[in-house]
C-alpha cells in the first residue's frame, strides 16, 4: 500500500513521520472525537483553540531576581494577580496572588528583600495557543490553577489564561442557544 503526502503528492516511505520532499508533518495529533454526535458545544470545546479566548491584556513577565515588593506594587497599580517568571528567555516559574498569600505574606516582614524565585511556583503547566480549550480546562481542573500560561512552541509567552476567561466563554456560549 502506498501513501502520498497530502501537501505535495510525493510518496514517502510507509510510516514516515514527515514528507522528505516538502517537510510537512505526516503525524496526526490525536484528539479524540466527541462520542456524542451533533453536539456543537462539545465539539467547540475540542476544536476551538485556546487563542480564541486570549486578550493578551493579562501578560506580565518578570525576572527571578525581582523583589516581591516590586511585583506587588505593579499588581496594585495594574490590578493584576499573576506574573510569569522568565530567565534567559525560558519560563522558570509563575507568581500569583496565591503564592504571595501562602509563601510571602506574614512569613517575610520586609518584602523588598525577598526575591521572586523564593516564593514563585516553579515550572508551571502551560498550554499552546492552538491547543483546544478543553486542554486548558483539564489543566485548571486537575491542578487547581486559576492561571495557565500560554506559550508559543519556542517558549515565548503569548498570554496568561485566566479561569475567568473560560467561565466567560462558557457563559456566553450558554446564552446563545
Amino acid at each position, binding site marked *: 500500500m502506498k501513501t502520498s503526502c497530502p501537501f505535495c503528492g510525493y510518496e514517502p516511505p510507509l510510516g514516515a513521520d514527515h514528507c522528505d520532499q516538502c517537510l510537512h508533518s505526516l503525524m496526526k495529533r490525536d484528539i479524540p472525537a466527541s462520542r456524542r454526535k451533533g453536539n456543537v458545544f462539545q465539539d467547540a470545546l475540542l476544536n476551538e483553540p485556546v487563542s480564541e479566548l486570549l486578550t493578551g491584556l493579562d501578560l506580565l513577565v518578570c525576572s527571578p531576581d525581582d523583589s516581591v515588593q516590586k511585583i506587588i506594587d505593579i499588581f496594585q497599580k495594574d490590578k493584576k494577580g499573576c506574573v510569569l517568571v522568565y530567565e534567559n528567555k525560558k519560563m522558570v516559574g509563575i507568581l500569583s496572588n496565591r503564592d504571595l498569600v501562602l509563601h510571602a505574606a506574614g512569613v517575610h516582614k520586609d518584602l523588598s528583600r525577598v526575591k521572586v524565585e523564593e516564593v514563585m511556583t516553579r515550572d508551571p503547566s502551560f498550554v499552546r495557543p492552538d491547543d483546544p480549550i478543553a486542554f486548558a480546562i483539564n489543566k485548571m481542573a486537575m491542578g487547581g490553577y486559576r492561571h495557565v500560561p500560554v506559550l508559543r512552541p519556542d517558549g515565548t509567552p503569548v498570554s496568561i489564561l485566566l479561569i475567568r476567561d473560560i467561565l466567560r466563554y462558557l457563559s456566553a456560549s*450558554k446564552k446563545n442557544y
Partner: protein
Amino acid sequence: MTMTSTSERRLKEKKIGEIINPRLIQAPPTTSVERAVQIMRDNKSAYIVVSDKKRVVGMFTESDLTQKILNKPVDWARPISDFMSEDPVVLRQDDTVGRAVDLMAEQDFYHIPLVNEKQQLVNVLSVRTLVRFLAEFYPGEVYNLPPNPHQIAEQREGG
C-alpha cells in the same frame, strides 16, 4: 454558536448543592489581618467568608490582601472588616450551576457564599469546585485527552 445539547440544559438545571464539597472557611468580622492570613495559609484557602452569627457580612480574599494590605503601612492588628468586600453576592444551594458560572464570569470574585432560606451561611462555592465540576461534566472532552498532547515521536516507528 447554537447549542441544543442536553448537557447545556443540564448545566442550567443542575443545582449548586449537588456539586459542592463540604469545606467552609469562615471567621467573624473582628478577626485581625494577622490571624486571617494565618487561617488562609493553614487551610490553603484563597478566601474567608466573614460571618456574624451565621449571617454573611463580607468576603476577605487573597486579592484584598495583596491589593490593600501588602506593601502598605497597615497595622495587621486591624480587623478584616476594614478590608473585606461588604455584603457580597450570595446564592442558594438550589440555584443552578449555570447561574454561578454567569456570576463569576461577569464579576471579579471567585467565591460565592451559599445561604439557606433564612439567609444563614451554609457553604461556599469556589471557582475551583466549579471548574472541576465542569471538567467532569464534559468528561469525553476534557479527560479523554492524550497524556502528553505535545509529544512528538523522535523516530519512525518500529526497529
